[in-house]
């Protein structure tokens, strides 16, 4: 992808290179399909007659040579390599052992994809080669312009509109903060509640017993969290004893007298 800008596409149709040049030009490909198409064009036959088996082999050789040069291949190239290796072996299997979809079908689908990409690539090149405004044909250099009376009409095109919004958001989004109210039990509330209730608990009691009850799930979580911190705080202050027999076992509380 990075190399794409260098091959400006006003020029001739895509290159067809010899394999030994390919190994040195990894950055130039826009993904596995692009590489496959270039290899396919190298076979110099109509894409309808292309041998997918040969193509798979070429691709795998190419990936191997890239590896031997210790070039880093993007993941999608390796995925394609694995898939082609699978396809290649499936194509070589006796027919009766074939899975569904058959390897022939997979090969045909790949060939159809290549044909379509190839068609668009050629179409793009032909489009760029047309008589283009500002290069081959020119509008009048110094038009008088059509002007003007009274009635104003305001002009703004769609791209300008959505572009402005995009730029605006990019520029200002952090300025717009809406703080959502969340249901929470504060630490103060929790300490207050726990110190009142612990006095009545004669024996070891699970922490849940002391927590504020609520219908709201997020409030229950908050209640547990601040209740736990409150218990730690009261233990630190010497009002409460804490006990837990095992990891994840119930947390037991008792007043310290």
């Amino acid at each position, binding site marked *: *992808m990075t190399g*794409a*800008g260098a*091959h*400006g*596409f*006003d020029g001739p149709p*895509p290159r067809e290179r010899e394999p030994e040049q390919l190994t040195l030009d990894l950055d130039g490909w*826009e*993904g*596995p*399909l*692009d590489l496959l198409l270039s290899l396919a064009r190298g076979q110099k036959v109509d894409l309808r007659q292309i041998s997918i088996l040969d193509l798979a082999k070429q691709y795998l050789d190419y990936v191997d040579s890239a590896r031997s040069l210790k070039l880093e291949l993007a993941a999608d190239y390796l995925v394609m390599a694995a898939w082609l290796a699978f396809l290649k072996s499936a194509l070589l299997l006796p*027919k009766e052992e074939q899975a*569904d*979809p*058959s390897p*022939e*079908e997979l090969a*045909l*689908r790949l060939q*159809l*994809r290549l*044909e*379509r*990409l190839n*068609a*668009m*690539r*050629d*179409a*793009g*090149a*032909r*489009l*760029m080669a*047309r*008589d*283009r*405004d*500002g*290069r*081959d*044909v*020119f*509008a*009048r250099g110094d*038009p*008088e*312009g*059509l002007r003007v009376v009274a009635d104003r009409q305001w002009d703004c095109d*769609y*791209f300008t509109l*959505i*572009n402005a919004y995009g730029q605006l958001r990019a520029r200002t989004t952090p300025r717009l903060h809406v703080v959502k109210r969340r249901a929470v039990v504060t630490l103060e509330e929790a300490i207050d509640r726990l110190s009142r209730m612990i006095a009545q608990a004669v024996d070891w009691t699970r922490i849940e017993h002391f927590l504020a009850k609520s219908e709201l799930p997020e409030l229950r979580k908050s209640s547990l969290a601040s209740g736990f911190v409150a218990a730690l705080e009261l233990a630190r202050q010497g009002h409460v004893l804490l006990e837990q027999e095992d990891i994840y076992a119930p947390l037991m509380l008792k007043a310290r007298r």
Partner: protein
Amino acid sequence: MSDAVPHAADGNPVDDSVRAVEATLFAAEEAMTADQIRAHVGEAVDVAGALAALETHYAGRGIELVRRGRHWRFQTAPDLGRLLRRERTQLRRLSRAGVETLAIIAYHEPVSRAEIEAIRGVQISKGTLDVLMEAGWVRPAGRREVPGRPLIYATTPDFLVHFGLQSRRDLPGIAELKAAGLLDPVDDAFDALDPDEDEDADDVPDAHNSGAGSHDLLESDNESG
């Protein structure tokens, strides 16, 4: 030179409607539709007739009258481009991704981003569509009424002007591509192939159904285009 020239001023006065349309288009800064021309020259003028007369009159001259979609404009004859090019700035070159994306949009429009990516086999990098929209060749053209309501893209009137096309039907090779099924999605093309070639294949119908999903979208385009 064999005095191939003087013919206009002698005898036949040029029709006033033709003169008015000629002057208006000549002075305009952008290509104009017949309606826009009419707003200048008045309701009484047969704009279509004048345009036809001008088209004939200018054929073969150094300046031509051309139609681009619904818009008309004067421009220099393409074969003279080399004379005029030297002092002009070169067009900004499009990247390969840009060219392919533009071609896919033009030949398949309207088309979603996912559909473009399906054909190219890679994600569209940021900036590719942006560049095409900034050039004024492509614009969002609503949404596809399928789950997710993806934006769809199409070409603009400026696209036709820039590439010298009377309409999208003039896109190079579009008729052949269409006839060859190369504008149809892979699944459709696969379905269209003769299943008889696979002797022991009762399994083919399954494959059809499994792959259909995302490409139904493209199918509907071809009919609308």
